[in-house]
């Protein structure tokens, strides 16, 4: 289905619309979290849902993240499809026992008798000038927890499509929303939204032949910009937007790297123990003999997220991506 571009819409609007449409179609979809009702969420992603569907469908909870997620587990046990909003990345941490020991495991524990179709929306990443504990990239924790799906959109279209797919999924999905892309805009028609993408498919955002940038979420625009800038250096870079960290689309990624022979993984999360290690390792396992150089990583430093005035030094930007591309041992090329 092609989208009819009616007017520029923001990612925030697409997310809101995805929840609205899901709630309208399926009465078992319930939204809950801190300030999601009357206020419409601190990022306004749930704006209007309580007005349209009532407090019982979009509910302001007491301030307790383990309680929110634990309550959602119980709701899902009874057949509802809860969509939980965590207010910020770091404020999901109190819910980790519920997440790891129950949400991720319940289907398995009960041999499929008790699936938990819960979507946990987590605004993540930095670049918005937030004070400490408001800019964490927590995807490594979720990736290391079998039983969860982990997805993250980089475009307005995907924000809608992936969130619809997450809510429709019979498994728990961690839905990571790149905060600094909330207000990014695209031509997008809320009246004829893109088809719901299946979870687990990466997409090539830009075709190229010299090397592959493997990235996701907030770093996708950075990589696209880097790819443009790289043309001046004579590099034609391919950009793969993973969209789904779990399940991982080995096929798309490996196909690209086999074609280009070189790869850089780019993300904002800290490097050590971050997603890039897994990605680089599995790409290398699958493409070893196609590689002209080791898969390199451009990531946030291995430090606690910096204060607002210093965050630009931490965030992987175009220059660092190009530096890494330059280190892909071009001299060895025939």
């Amino acid at each position: 289905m092609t989208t009819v571009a009616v007017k520029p819409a923001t990612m925030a609007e697409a997310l809101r619309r995805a929840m609205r449409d899901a709630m309208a179609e399926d009465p078992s979809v319930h939204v809950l979290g801190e300030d999601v009702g009357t206020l419409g969420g601190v990022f306004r992603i749930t704006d209007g849902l309580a007005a349209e569907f009532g407090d019982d469908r979009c509910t302001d909870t007491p301030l307790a993240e383990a309680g929110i997620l634990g309550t959602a587990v119980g709701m899902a046990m009874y057949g509802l499809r809860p969509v939980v909003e965590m207010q910020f990345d770091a404020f999901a941490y109190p819910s980790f026992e519920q997440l790891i020991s129950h949400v991720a495991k319940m289907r398995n524990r009960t041999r499929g008798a008790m699936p938990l179709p819960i979507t946990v929306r987590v605004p993540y990443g930095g670049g918005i000038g937030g004070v400490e504990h408001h800019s964490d990239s927590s995807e490594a924790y979720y990736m290391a927890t079998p039983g969860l799906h982990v997805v993250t959109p980089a475009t307005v279209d995907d924000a809608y499509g992936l969130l619809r797919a997450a809510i429709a999924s019979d498994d728990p999905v961690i839905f990571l929303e790149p905060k600094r892309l909330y207000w990014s805009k695209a031509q997008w028609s809320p009246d004829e939204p893109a088809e719901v993408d299946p979870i687990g498919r990466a997409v090539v955002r830009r075709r190229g032949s010299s090397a592959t940038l493997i990235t996701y979420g907030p770093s996708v625009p950075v990589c696209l910009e880097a790819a443009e800038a790289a043309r001046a250096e004579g590099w034609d870079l391919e950009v793969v937007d993973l969209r789904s960290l779990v399940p991982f689309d080995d096929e798309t990624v490996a196909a690209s790297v086999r074609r280009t022979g070189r790869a850089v993984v780019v993300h904002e999360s800290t490097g050590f123990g971050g997603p890039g290690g897994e990605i680089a390792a599995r790409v290398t396992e699958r493409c070893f003999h196609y590689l002209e150089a080791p898969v390199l990583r451009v990531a946030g430093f291995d430090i606690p997220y910096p204060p607002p005035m210093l965050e630009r030094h931490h965030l992987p930007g175009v220059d660092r991506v190009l530096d890494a591309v330059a280190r892909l041992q071009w001299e060895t090329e025939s």
Partner: protein
Amino acid sequence: MKKSSTSVQELPGAAGHLPHPPPAWRPRTDPAPLLPDPEPYRVLGTDAAAGADPALLLRLYAELVRGRRYNTQATALTKQGRLAVYPSSTGQEACQIAAALVLREQDWLFPSYRDTLAAVARGLDPVQALTLLRGDWHTGYDPHEHRIAPLSTPLATQLPHAVGLAHAARLKGDDVVALALVGDGGTSEGDFHEALNFAAVWRVPVVFLVQNNGFAISVPLSKQSAAPSLAHKAVGYGMPGRLVDGNDVVAVHTVLGEALARAGRGEGPTLVEALTYRIDAHTNADDATRYRAGDEVEIWRAHDPVRLLEHELTARGVLDEDGIGKAAEAAEAMAARLRDRMNAEPVLDPMDLFAHVYAHQTAQLREQAAQLRAELEASADEGSEESSDEGSGEGRAEGSGETR
């Protein structure tokens, strides 16, 4: 949705700051009705016993006797290596049986690892109830079948689940109440707090039963809480707290029944604390002599839940030696069946490891399943599969498998 303008009390005049108390957030409900009585509620041995329905008492008695026998049988199975571990509820049978029998068909039970007896008394096949503790799978049953949530090992985590389920049922217009069990130790966890608060704020039809058996493994109640009683915690959430003699099955049944009825009427949750005692060690692997004096156990044995009811029934002439014998026989038959069935080797399929991680197996899991399948086939060819002892059980020793 509505803007807040709730409890603010209009002041006589805008200028008059002075003689007025602060305009809002004053006590919204009277705490008095929420406070538990200082003495735990009892029926057996009191005048109230006379009013109890003899048929119910006999049923409770039969279940208590079976329950006690179930506990001793399961403990015996650990000695024979048929269970990995068993956390006994010996001494707590009154709580277990009352919790199971007080629930209606449509209600839900949220047990912890110590509450397999309650699950069995509610109708669950004991072999399925013991699956977790035997070690062939985690949850051995479909929770929907008897409306029994999976046995919860991470302490107090089942409480918000009970809240969420009962909340969902009410939103759907169903007449369903959830009963959630937790130990005295579990009340210290943050999840206990958050669950009770959600329940009270949303007036969820849920009842929380704390089986205060005096210990969290080795830690006595005095190191766990300084509260007047655990039931007093209810006040801080704005729900009523009830204190009950946890070895008096009729009292527990009555108090839970009232709380469940209240919940069903839409009047919100109740916290019930049952005073009882863990007669056995924490599990078969634990050594309780390291942390408690034997006379304490003896004192509680004198308040044994089975004997308490038996005394009442025989004193009233409702039960005689013959009846006692019949109950014991029925329990013995149950134990024999259980023993036989647990002695059968469970049928295991290693491929189950990959079957229920997601609704649809991922490409990665398909690969891994294929790897294991190939390994199993290779070792079957060598005829060595069954005798393989690699991994499991290795390194077992003192302390290991002690808790669950």
